């Protein structure tokens, strides 16, 4: 058994208590440990990518209990891709945070590691009660991170965020209970075998449970009509935390991809493609609402939040088509939108810090320090986020449009996608010209930035470079993502990897 698979969960799980106990009073020590852990996570993710890149699925049975009786971790191309994205994003965000914002409150680094543990666990687990547990781990860490630094508006938004997620957790448990009561299993691969065999009388219970579970994942992915928590949370959270949260919405998207293709996909009998008729309309409305929000935003942080909602809509439109080509496009867009969303929050924070009194409000105000540098960064980020050529957003959108050509109603999808792109371009253009362009004409000057921001700028540069990298290596990357999508749709391979190849012939069950 290969023990490297569990390393992305164990490493932060060990590092967080060390940070909590040993490095409690020493910020420098905490930063060193935290960065070292993130670099190690990136290394492990790269090694795992090498391991699964030839198409094998590696499983890890905890305590050597044989699945479906024990809990199992599964590393395939999709989950390892998500691990790699998480590790890369975490490193950039951490560089930004150690530039000062980690000092605004206590235990930032410990909570950060717990958050990574939860996210990595959610990507790796092959068991949906275990998925619930990792959701709770990542959520409870995110509650702490969300109110990091305190303040009236932040704690108020924090209470709302905790309340909505507790409701989400309750629904998750009810859904898991419903599915278990008819399928009698919590293992995703085992569920995939049993779903087609569920009696007609139990189908209603099974499908209600599965759709409740979809609702929970949609809360995480901020899909309309359960998106209300996102703008308040992201706009009020500290910038590095908001940037890290860009991956949290993707956890919801990942779970939709995993469960609704594996267990409720082509082979599910009466419950096949259960999610598709609900997901597509919701995603289209989300896309429209998010990009309209970009147009209506009054602050840069708000604009970034609505851009995230819009991008989640776009991502889930591609997922909801449920074809290998659309999934490949969705994965490309997922990588891109995580980086683009995160960098927007970081830029908004730097702008906000340089304009005391105005913060990140989209108002004309005097010049501030490093205006042209930040304007350049915002320009590149906006090109990526709105999907203009030549950056990765454009390629992602093109891939999604191409995949939507063969769908049931391509006209609707195409026109909405293109129309909302126009809205986003107008919104971003207006914000950028107000903040950076018109402000150059104003008399006076904001005081120079109080602290040195080199690391923050490096973090922003790294994320933007990621977007450029996605564009430059789009060819080999899309080939890899095509293979990833095909592996996700080859559910038989996943089931055999988890349960052994005798299962499908009716051997042990």
């Amino acid at each position, binding site marked *: 058994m290969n023990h490297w698979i569990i390393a992305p969960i164990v490493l932060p799980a060990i590092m967080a208590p060390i940070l909590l106990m040993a490095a409690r009073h020493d910020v420098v020590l905490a930063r060193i440990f935290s960065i070292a852990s993130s670099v190690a996570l990136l290394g492990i993710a790269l090694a795992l990518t090498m391991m699964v890149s030839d198409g094998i699925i590696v499983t890890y049975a905890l305590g050597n209990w044989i699945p479906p009786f024990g809990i199992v971790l599964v590393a395939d191309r999709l989950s390892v891709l998500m691990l790699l994205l998480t590790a890369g994003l975490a490193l950039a965000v951490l560089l930004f945070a150690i530039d000062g914002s980690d000092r605004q409150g206590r235990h930032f680094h410990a909570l950060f590691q717990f958050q990574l543990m939860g996210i990595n666990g959610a990507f790796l687990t092959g068991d949906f009660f275990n998925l619930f547990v990792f959701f709770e781990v990542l959520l409870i860490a995110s509650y702490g991170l969300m*109110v990091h630094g305190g303040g009236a508006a932040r704690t108020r938004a924090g209470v709302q965020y905790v309340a909505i997620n507790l409701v989400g957790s309750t629904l998750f448990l009810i859904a898991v209970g419903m599915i278990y009561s008819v399928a009698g299993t919590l293992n995703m691969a085992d569920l995939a075998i049993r779903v087609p065999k569920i009696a007609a009388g139990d189908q209603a219970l099974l499908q209600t449970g599965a759709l409740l579970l979809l609702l929970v994942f949609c809360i995480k992915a901020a899909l309309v009509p359960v998106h209300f928590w996102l703008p308040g949370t992201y706009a009020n959270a500290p910038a590095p935390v908001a940037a890290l949260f860009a991956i949290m919405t993707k956890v919801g998207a990942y779970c939709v991809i995993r469960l609704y293709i594996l267990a409720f996909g082509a082979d599910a009998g009466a419950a096949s493609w259960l999610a598709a008729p609900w997901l597509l309309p919701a995603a289209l409305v989300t896309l429209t609402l998010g990009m309209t929000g970009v147009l209506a935003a009054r602050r840069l942080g708000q604009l970034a939040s609505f851009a995230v909602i819009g991008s989640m809509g776009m991502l889930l439109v591609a997922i909801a088509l449920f074809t290998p080509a659309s999934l490949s496009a969705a994965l490309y867009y997922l990588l891109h939108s995580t980086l683009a969303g995160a960098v927007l929050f970081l830029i908004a924070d730097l702008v906000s810090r340089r304009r005391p009194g105005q913060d990140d409000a989209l108002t004309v105000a005097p010049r501030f320090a490093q205006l042209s540098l930040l304007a350049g960064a915002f320009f590149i980020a906006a090109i990526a986020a709105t999907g203009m050529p030549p950056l990765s957003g454009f390629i992602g959108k093109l891939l999604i449009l191409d995949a939507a050509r063969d769908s049931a109603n391509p006209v609707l999808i195409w026109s909405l996608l293109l129309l909302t792109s126009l809205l986003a371009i107008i919104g971003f253009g207006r914000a950028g010209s107000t903040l950076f362009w018109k402000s150059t004409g104003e008399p006076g000057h904001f005081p120079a930035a109080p602290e040195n921001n080199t690391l923050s700028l490096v973090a922003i540069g790294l994320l933007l470079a990621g977007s450029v990298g996605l564009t430059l290596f789009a060819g080999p990357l899309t080939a890899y993502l095509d293979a990833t999508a095909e592996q996700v749709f080859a559910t038989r391979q996943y089931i055999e990897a988890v349960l052994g190849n005798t299962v499908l012939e009716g051997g042990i069950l």
Partner: protein
Amino acid sequence: MEFLLSSAIGLLTAAGVYLILRARTYPVVLGLALLSYATNLFLFATGRLVLDRPPVILALANGYTDPLPQALVLTAIVISFGMTAVIVVMALRSYLENGSDHVDGETHSEDRS
């Protein structure tokens, strides 16, 4: 027994949903707690209602009850207990910082309007 359990779950859920829709944090916290109790009972019932049967292997047993939901309920109790503690602390902090326990932070003067 089926009627007793299902009506208890239904009542707890209805009360919980009513309370989380209130505008003050204290009823919301109580509502979340009631919802988590309802969920625990519901999870317990997913293994079917069985009387006087052991969950683990016993030589003299005539049959078994499903042990898995019991393990799930234990996990769920621990997590919901922790989460309730977290939201109580957060709600208190929000009350102290905002001077109001309204979920949207409205102040007392706007209460009766």
